[in-house]
């Protein structure tokens, strides 16, 4: 058995070095050379200061912004260092208790809107950092946002359409809207 020790130890050190040091460094080199924006977090800069990432959602509660999907991270929603879903089961009363206030808040902010609420707008995402929501979720909020900003509803809907990402090649993914990018575009409207 002791004859196994030398090959075991030496091979372990070599394969660890190759797969644990050389490989990640090579990938880092390729990433920083070819895809520097993506490799460093897809940050959005304003006056050279980072104001968010296109890939990480933010919390919105102001009626003049589109609201993101609910986030189950703690202690605050959209906690970047604590990604997590709610892990609430379908029969857990806490799930319904969490959903009801979200419905109430959406209804209170837009009393005239009697349309059924799209399910992704009142359910917490898997990561708690979902940067996107369904087109239906954005459409549902279009009237409220338009009123709060004194904009024609058609203009807000056109902005949603311009920010809608469809299925890739008609197959992959779901039609969706990036909430932070949409809100930044709203703020940029004159």
């Amino acid at each position, binding site marked *: 058995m002791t004859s196994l020790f030398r090959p075991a130890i030496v091979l372990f050190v*070599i394969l660890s070095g190759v797969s644990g040091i050389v490989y990640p460094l090579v990938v880092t080199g390729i990433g920083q050379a070819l895809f520097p924006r993506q490799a460093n977090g897809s940050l959005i800069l304003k006056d050279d200061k980072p104001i968010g990432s296109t890939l990480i*959602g933010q919390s919105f509660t102001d009626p003049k912004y589109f609201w993101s999907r609910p986030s189950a991270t703690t*202690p605050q929603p959209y906690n970047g260092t604590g*990604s997590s879903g709610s892990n*609430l089961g379908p029969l857990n009363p806490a799930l319904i208790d969490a959903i009801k206030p979200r419905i109430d808040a959406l209804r209170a902010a837009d009393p005239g809107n009697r349309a059924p609420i799209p399910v992704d707008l009142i359910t917490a995402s898997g990561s708690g950092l979902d940067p996107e929501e369904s087109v239906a979720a954005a459409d549902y909020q279009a009237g409220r946002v338009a009123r709060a900003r004194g904009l024609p509803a058609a203009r807000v809907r056109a902005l949603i359409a311009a920010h809608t990402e469809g299925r890739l090649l008609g197959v992959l993914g*779901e039609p969706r809207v990036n909430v932070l990018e949409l809100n930044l575009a709203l703020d940029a409207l004159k």
Partner: protein
Amino acid sequence: MTAASQILIIVFLAVGLLCVKPLGLYMANVMEGRPIWPLRVGAPIERWIYRLCGINPALEMGWKQYTLALLVFNTLGALMVYALQRLQLWLPLNPQHFANVAPDSAFNTAVSFITNTNWQGYSGESTMSYLSQMAGLAVQNFLSAATGIVVAIALIRGFARHGAEAIGNFWVDMTRSTLYVLLPLAALIAVLLLSQGVLQNFSAYKDVTTLETLEYQQPKVDAAGNPVKDAQGNPVMENVTTRTQTLPMGPIASQEAIKELGTNGGGFLNANSAHPYENPTALSNFIEMLAILLIPASLTYTFGRMVGDTRQGWAVLAAMTILFLVMVNVALVSEQTGNPLVGKLGVDQTVSALQPGGNMEGKEARFGIAASSLFATVTTGTSCGAVNSMHDSFTPLGGFVPLFNMMLGEVVFGGVGTGLYSMLIFAIVGVFIAGLMIGRTPEYLGKKIESFEMKMSSVAILVMPFIVLFGAAVGVSVAAGQAGVANPGAHGFSEILYAFVSASNNNGSAFGGISANTVFYNTALGLVMWLGRYWPIVAVMAIAGSLAAKKRVPVTSGTMVTYGPTFVVLLIGTVLLVGALTFVPALALGPIVEHLMLWGGSHG
């Protein structure tokens, strides 16, 4: 089920199955040491490695020595992962200054990563230094996958050789599977993922200034960092106002690639492949699912090639694919139907061109229902365990699918290597049962299946149900086990059952609400992962050794055909009977009763 979701499944399977022959052939050539160009280029490196190790690559080992080398090598890995975690505060590449990991958690994680389980009791972005991740965990992502491959190859050689004492050289097999199969594929996948937005850097976490000011409450802590309690012992809350969001960073893409390719599943970040920095787009999701399927599916061709009859490999692949299609559709329909309790609240759960609808709790907008259900089936049919949605929040039947996939013993493509060798064990049992029924001597691939092979097959198959049911029984009986449960009722039972099924099968996914970073779960699941991995491996290696020594039985008109539809049906039947009947009572107490309650209205 919608047309779009069916097209996704078909496209995914078609692309995956198209890779089977070329990759399977390549792996056969690599493991047989044929002079293809990558091996010719790598030959000087190989020679240098073998000289440093002091081994003669031409000298092959018997099954006992091979297994011993495997166990020693894997133990070294466990010691390394444990040491890195326990010392990370004093080691480089720890920009967030994370503390050393507690002993019980470090033990659990060490066993978890050497056994290809990647069960995670910890939260990556707030626990592990970059060094622990890449030099500890990611290394084991490679080496545990390579370990799976070499065991499968040893078993294949057992069938392919006759009258042979030896089944290969462990050091050579490990070196070749790592250098020629895993590393180049991982590098390719890592670059593809990088292009989609997966991180790859060594920066400290970045603060960004958010658009809106966020007000929230958090537990107040004193100067020493201990929570402040009021007179009644409740934690005192304080109001916080902030416009800062801290974003995690790190060398994620390199680890993400091998996490999927090696069917490991351990996320760099807590939310795993649901996290936009691990899995940012619909395309990255497709690449990750494909990476999980690639090697387990292709090894069936490697098998057929190396035993000299590719029809044998296609038959095994057909059985896997049929089981897969059934499972994915059960998950899909159930998740798309949604939650009736949510529907009652005036919420729109219907699928349309503008929304995925269905049960979106714990799912990401970019994946919706289809890509989440598909990922859940892929990750649990194989032994990957990465998740792009939270299985704990699935509907009862949607959550049944991952649970049942694992209970089948991870043979719906299965883990890297483990899937093939587990399926071949089922095939041995299948031909034995068929042989008994029709009164023929059971044979498989020209080898007589005798009492030693049957004993070892039973050992390999039965250890998993035993430790699952025993472990879950202890978990629900002791206070330390019950304390981890997050959801009430039948679902809480499912959380404990899922934890033990996942650990025993070296999957690593979870009904994630369970609080498993406790001394009880870290220890119990650590032991279960260890037994669930190495007990079957030793039995499989014993079978490999025994088969290699046997003579080949000539094919006669009395030989049972082990390809074609009849055999595929026999194989599926064996998997379902042997692998699943054991668990029907447990499933009835968990997802099945939960399904009846959800739709029967007894929830009040």
